[in-house]
């Protein structure tokens, strides 16, 4: 395995009496697409939320690109270089598509109250750069012509794309996607797959939660499988397909 982009180990997370995650870890090599699968309620999204700072883990070590990072708050994680999307789309509904992506630039820009009110040269240049970059990203995900539309009036597939563009605007080293293909039809899934490959080719590592096994098998370099908050398998897709524990987890012991 080449250099690691993400190296997480020993994550425990308990909600009251429920042990949601037990000693879960994941290693992602630079430039790969890694999938995280598991039956419903296996703890995939919990693990995701821990990685991105939305939940506080009880234990665990976290390393991004060789440097430890602390998932103590979501904005710090975004600053460190992990951007995410949400299982149920969370766009800024009343803002335009372009503005949504411009918000993504927040963490990489710095003008404050003074710059906003006086709009001096540096502030103007920054604002123009934000706008240009946001438009570029909209074009990149293929919805460049919808920049002026209010986000919540976009079609479902385009909203998913917009969320990805917004995440990319934070200049992530790792892009974490929570079920990006949920609710998409076959054509949309194919287009999504192309987009993910394009993002990978742009040098961004991807962590992916997805239910669509066909999509995952063709797309992912490696796959990790969670069940009842424990990691039960890890490997290249072909191995996972044959793994007895995985088959049992999905289909039950009789098979």
């Amino acid at each position, binding site marked *: 395995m080449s250099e690691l982009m993400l190296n997480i180990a020993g994550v425990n997370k308990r909600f009251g009496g429920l042990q949601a995650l037990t000693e879960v870890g994941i290693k992602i090599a630079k430039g790969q697409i890694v999938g995280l699968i598991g039956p419903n309620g296996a703890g995939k999204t919990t693990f995701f939320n821990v990685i*991105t700072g939305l939940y506080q883990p009880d234990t665990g070590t976290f390393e991004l690109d060789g440097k430890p990072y602390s998932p103590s708050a979501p904005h710090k994680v975004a600053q460190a270089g992990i951007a995410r999307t949400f299982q149920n789309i969370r766009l800024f509904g009343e803002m335009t598509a372009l503005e949504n992506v411009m918000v993504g630039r*927040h*963490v990489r820009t710095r003008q404050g109250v003074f710059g906003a009110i006086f709009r001096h040269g540096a502030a103007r240049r920054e604002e123009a750069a934000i706008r240009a970059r946001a438009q570029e990203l909209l074009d990149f995900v293929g919805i460049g012509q919808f920049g002026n539309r209010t986000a919540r009036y976009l079609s479902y597939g385009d909203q998913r794309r917009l969320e990805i563009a917004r995440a990319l605007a934070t200049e992530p080293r790792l892009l974490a996607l929570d079920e990006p293909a949920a609710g998409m039809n076959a054509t949309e899934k194919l287009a999504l797959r192309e987009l993910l490959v394009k993002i990978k080719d742009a040098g961004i590592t991807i962590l992916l939660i997805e239910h669509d096994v066909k999509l995952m098998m063709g797309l992912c370099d490696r796959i990790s499988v969670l069940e009842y908050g424990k990691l039960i398998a890890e490997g290249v897709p072909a191995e996972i397909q044959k793994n007895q524990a995985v088959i049992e987890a999905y289909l039950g012991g009789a098979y």
Partner: protein
Amino acid sequence: MALLTFDTAHKPRQSYASMAVLLAAMLVFPFVAAQFGNSWVRIIDMALLYIMLALGLNIVVGFAGLLDLGYIAFFAVGAYLTGLLASPQFAALLESVVNYSPAMGDALVALFGESIRTEGIHLSVWAIVPLAGLVAALFGALLGAPTLKLRGDYLAIVTLGFGEIIRIFMNNLNDPINFTNGPQGINLIDPIRIFGVSLAGEAGSKATVFIGGVGIPSVNAYYFLFLLLCIVTIFMTSRLQHSRLGRAWVAIREDEIAAKAMGINTRNVKLLAFSMGASFGGVAGAMFAAFQGFVSPESFSLTESIAVLAMVVLGGIGHIPGVVMGGVLLAALPEVLRHVVEPAQQALFGKVIIEAEVLRQLLYGLAMVLIMLNRPAGLWPSPIKEDRPVAATDKDEKEEEAVAS
């Protein structure tokens, strides 16, 4: 609203023309209104202060989506700050300090000079305005800090409590050290003096201000000052709205978790919204105190907070021209009613059947209900942004219906 548009992004020429027309009308207004009596100009003076308040509150409620029911507290902070630092009140404060602890009193005298014993402190407007803004901003952050994790109803309750706390403090902070003079309020606050010209007019001038030999009524002088401050406020808030910070505020309003995940430090950005909003309230409060010459806790009741919130909501939450219109309507209309209703009844029936104050409350309530029912986004909401062909979708639906039937 078809004639006037302020959508500078999409119709720049039309909106700058609208602004010019409106500004010209505003500049001429006091001279026309003065023909009908100074009280009309006075009404608009107060309306302008309320517009400043509404614009400040709009940052918190409109942009950042944080429901604040105690906003008038910042108005009170600005007003009382002016009362303390631009009136004889500081002499009373010093007296109580001396009674309490002579050493502390001596220290204050040593710090500010012997004259404060009899005359108090009289800061100039140039110190008062920034100070009022800063102190109110500080109070804004103080209020914001404990409410960071609260949303919606809970936030509203806490801010409401904060507003009441400030008012109760104003009522009771006269003992052992007399800061606010309690329920009696602070009197004899200095009028605003700009470059040596008092906007209240010099003694014996019958409230006429002479600027370069030309005399204008005092209310007109204040009118121009408040108009200027309003324009500055509009300018600042609209610049803030269309900036990196403004986008962060709206992002928090739309989805706080997503905003966090995009790397926005929601704690700092929310505190900034509270502070910025409060600072405009503080400056308006300072102007109010100097304009009235008197402040008392009664002026800062919950009703006032609600009135300012109503201006924002009724005008068009988050939309600056709408908020300004809401401010004009709700601040000026009641006063206009007061001047019109009773004489009209007198003329019609020979006696006053419904008092203006009662009618005002009635109409106020009725208007709010009707507007919320029919125009929930406010009278003048933000223009719809998307280039979605609204008419076309309607047509498609109709066609589908036609096919179905």
